[in-house]
């Protein structure tokens, strides 16, 4: 970093991965899910209903370009072409702006389906902590939504809120969670109704002599309290699963678990791909129903 260059503390790590043990050329049905969110975009490719690869990156200022960049990343890594993909489903905030998608499905249904794959068919309650909204979802053993609720009116309790705090504290976003535990005692939560108020309050606490870690702990607690009040409206039934970028922040996850009195199910997959994965799985089911005859089209 050169002098005068601003460090982007909020920038989370983009990720592209493919399963080297699978050969997509052997697959009968290849489907893709594109989740264009307000903060991040993911492309997931499934071969015969199994996760093959994904790309997770920041959403730009243009949804079609974000969708194209996301899918190109995973296509290039796998040596696949877009024409090799049988069916594409768009989801997320920019789902209707995915130029190569055959169909759009809401992120609520896709997250439930993705969580069902990632956490198993015992998952009943899902908390999706997205970039600029938060969703509480109930689903059945097949990952079909039975109850949902979302809050997208403000950024409090969302990934964007955490990015704001990372920038304010000048601490890389991935370190916020672990550092929130490095406090002598758990502080009171800051304002949880508005990110702007929370930021003002955090500044006030710093001036009052709070350590950065203590302010981060107060913010993590506020975020946990906010989403717990949301999820309690629909009720928590085990197993419980968290999707979205905030699932990677132990400072928030552990506090949510403490407030709910239940532990979130763990997964070996990247929690941010749940929506795109669900979309790809919807595509697979659809293709199975149609006998995969749409490949030529």
């Amino acid at each position, binding site marked *: 970093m050169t002098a005068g260059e601003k460090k982007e503390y909020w920038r989370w790590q983009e990720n592209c991965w493919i399963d080297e043990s699978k050969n997509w050329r052997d697959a009968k049905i290849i489907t893709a899910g594109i989740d264009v969110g307000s903060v991040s975009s993911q492309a997931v490719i499934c071969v015969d209903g199994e996760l093959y690869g994904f790309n997770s990156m920041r959403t730009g200022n243009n949804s079609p370009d974000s969708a194209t960049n996301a899918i190109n990343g995973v296509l290039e890594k796998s040596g696949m072409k877009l024409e090799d993909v049988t069916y594409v489903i768009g989801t997320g905030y920019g789902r209707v702006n995915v130029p190569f998608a055959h169909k759009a499905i809401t992120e609520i249904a896709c997250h439930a389906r993705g969580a069902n794959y990632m956490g198993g068919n015992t998952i009943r309650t899902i908390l999706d902590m997205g970039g600029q909204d938060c969703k509480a979802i109930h689903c059945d053993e097949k990952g079909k939504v*039975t109850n949902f609720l979302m809050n997208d009116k*403000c950024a409090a309790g969302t990934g964007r809120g955490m990015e704001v705090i990372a920038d304010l504290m000048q601490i890389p976003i991935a370190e916020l969670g672990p550092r929130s535990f490095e406090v002598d005692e758990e502080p009171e939560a800051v304002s949880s109704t508005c990110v702007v108020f929370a930021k003002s309050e955090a500044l006030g606490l710093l001036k009052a002599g709070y350590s950065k870690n203590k302010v981060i702990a107060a913010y993590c607690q506020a975020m946990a309290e906010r989403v717990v009040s949301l999820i309690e409206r629909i009720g928590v039934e085990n197993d419980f699963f968290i999707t979205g970028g905030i699932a990677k922040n132990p400072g928030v996850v552990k506090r949510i678990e403490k407030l709910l009195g239940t532990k979130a199910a763990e997964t070996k997959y990247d929690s941010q791909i749940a929506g795109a994965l669900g979309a790809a799985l919807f595509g697979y089911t659809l293709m199975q129903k149609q006998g995969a005859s749409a490949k030529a089209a």
Partner: protein
Amino acid sequence: MIANYGYKDGSGEYYISIDTDKCTSCTAGRACLTGCPKGMFEIITDDYDDEVAAVKQSFRRTLAFDCTGCKPAGGYTSLPCSTACTPGAIKHSW
């Protein structure tokens, strides 16, 4: 499926819940469409290809204000939307 449309903000929780399982075999002739004085409801095809009622996107963040006229202070003793929906699919959280 119970679909909750609305939000929570500093002033409270404002959600309209729709039990969409009751919409698929609606016996009220889609009365929600005309029952709401503001025309806040629409019929959509959901992700599972069922035709169900939903709150229009443009109203989902302003329910506290949009529904005020239909609350007791507005002279109503029961909500027009809930009354029109005889299968009982529509409920307000506040």
